[in-house]
């Protein structure tokens, strides 16, 4: 007698709770660098305060993030591999891609600098030197945005490092942080985005050895997932989030995020 209405109320409450949570929350499929650096911990409370929308971040490599979003397991995609992002939109999975912010890639290496590349700002020259001296180099090898950028740089340096895979060229197949841990453990050079590097805490005797090349530019983009492909998408909240990120206010917030007094991401959304 007592049980039934109680159970019904409980079920109703659960359903109501789930429904309102659905309205108020979105899932962002994101690259790891933005999450690991603490950018979201800084941005999301500001956004949530204003809009009441809860943003849940799944941080994986760009390749996996795109794949997950193509499976409709996210409302917004925030990654850094422009060619793949444009394909994502062209294939109908995203509504529109907008430039969001940038930083740059750097090559970090041990103090011993076995390939003698410290201080270079010509990344192709540095990579060629590393290949020539067969100094160990640890690559993500995971189809992430950073991995794609690294492969493009090897190509423009006219070196095929994968021929030496398992030799001096070591593909960890893991995220940026794990690759840095591994690379540092074996004295290898590693290419990383600057944001992850600055906020990384296990640097040991490593420092940035190659930086400042135009070709190491690292652009992040934001794309709402297309409801035409994925009816489950929380369209309004997703659009609100994407719009806020590229708005003057969102851009200012991105610029205001600092770790160790250094700005990690430089907003560059087009102004309308």
């Amino acid at each position, binding site marked *: 007698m007592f049980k039934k209405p109680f159970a019904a109320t409980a079920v109703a409450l659960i359903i109501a709770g789930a429904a309102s949570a*659905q309205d108020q929350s979105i*899932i962002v499929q994101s690259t*790891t660098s933005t999450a*690991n650096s603490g950018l*979201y*911990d800084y941005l999301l409370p500001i956004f949530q305060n204003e809009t009441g929308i809860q943003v*849940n*971040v*799944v*941080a994986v490599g760009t390749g996996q993030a795109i794949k*997950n979003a*193509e*499976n*409709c*397991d996210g409302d917004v995609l925030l990654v850094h591999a422009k060619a793949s992002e444009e394909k994502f939109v062209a294939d109908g999975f995203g509504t529109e891609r907008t430039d969001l912010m940038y930083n740059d890639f750097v090559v970090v290496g041990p103090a011993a600098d076995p390939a003698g590349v410290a201080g270079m700002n010509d990344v192709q020259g540095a990579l060629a030197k590393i290949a020539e001296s067969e100094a160990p180099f640890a690559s993500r090898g995971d189809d992430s945005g950073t991995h794609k950028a690294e492969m493009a740089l090897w190509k423009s340096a006219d070196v095929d490092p994968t021929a030496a895979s398992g030799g001096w060229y070591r593909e960890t197949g893991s*995220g*940026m*942080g*794990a690759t*840095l*841990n591994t690379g540092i453990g074996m004295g290898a050079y590693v290419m990383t985005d600057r944001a992850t590097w600055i*906020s*990384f*805490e*296990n*640097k040991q005797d490593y420092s940035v050895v190659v930086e400042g090349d135009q070709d190491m530019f690292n652009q992040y983009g934001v794309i709402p997932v297309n409801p035409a492909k*994925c009816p*489950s998408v929380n369209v309004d909240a997703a659009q609100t989030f994407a719009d806020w990120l590229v708005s003057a206010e969102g851009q200012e917030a991105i610029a205001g995020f600092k770790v160790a007094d250094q700005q990690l991401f430089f907003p560059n959304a087009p102004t309308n």
Partner: protein
Amino acid sequence: MQSIGEALGLAIALVLSGDPDLLEIVLLSLRVSLTATVIACMIGLPIGALVAIGRFRGRNAVLILMNALMGLPPVVVGLLVYLYLSRSGPLGFLGLLYTPTAMIIAQTILIAPIVAALSRQVIEDLHAEYAEQFRSLCLTRLQTVQALLWDARYSLLTVGLAGFGRAVAEVGAVIIVGGNIDHLTRVMTTAIALETSKGDLALALALGIILLVIALGVNAAVQSVRMTAARQAYV
């Protein structure tokens, strides 16, 4: 080695500070893994008992399969559950991906075979002792299973603990189906993986120490229940 001392200090400081984020992560870890353990026991114990007392064709093959499934790689379980729960998968309409429920499902699949295989062995050994008695009492199969499960309950607690240990320690499955979302699906192991990838090894290790202490606490609680029950049984 310096970082181990640092981690220990950090672990103690973290616990003492009563950090709400840490508490949330710890409670979710316990909620997910204990729920998975209970469900896995409800599935695994009857299966283990039935196989233990059953004599049927292909029994050996079933035994081998059950034992082999104890070695299910968490990542594979995570991927399978992901493929089913993904919005593009057959159960996508449920909207369970990236929720604690998805994590419970994955861990249940991971540890149900462990519970089934280990309880099968425990019950089979016990059954060998009592088989004649049961026959003389003309017990039905259901009664036999009930009697054996009850009689082996303390050994089966250890089986449950083995399952819980596996569940609370795994990271491969929950990170795929949970997504390690802060304040939603972040548990101890995924938090440890995250801090490791940030290079904050001391904090990662500190969380590991806390996880170990929690596992100790759960085991101690079960052990004390067992001892109290055993004492009362002999009074």
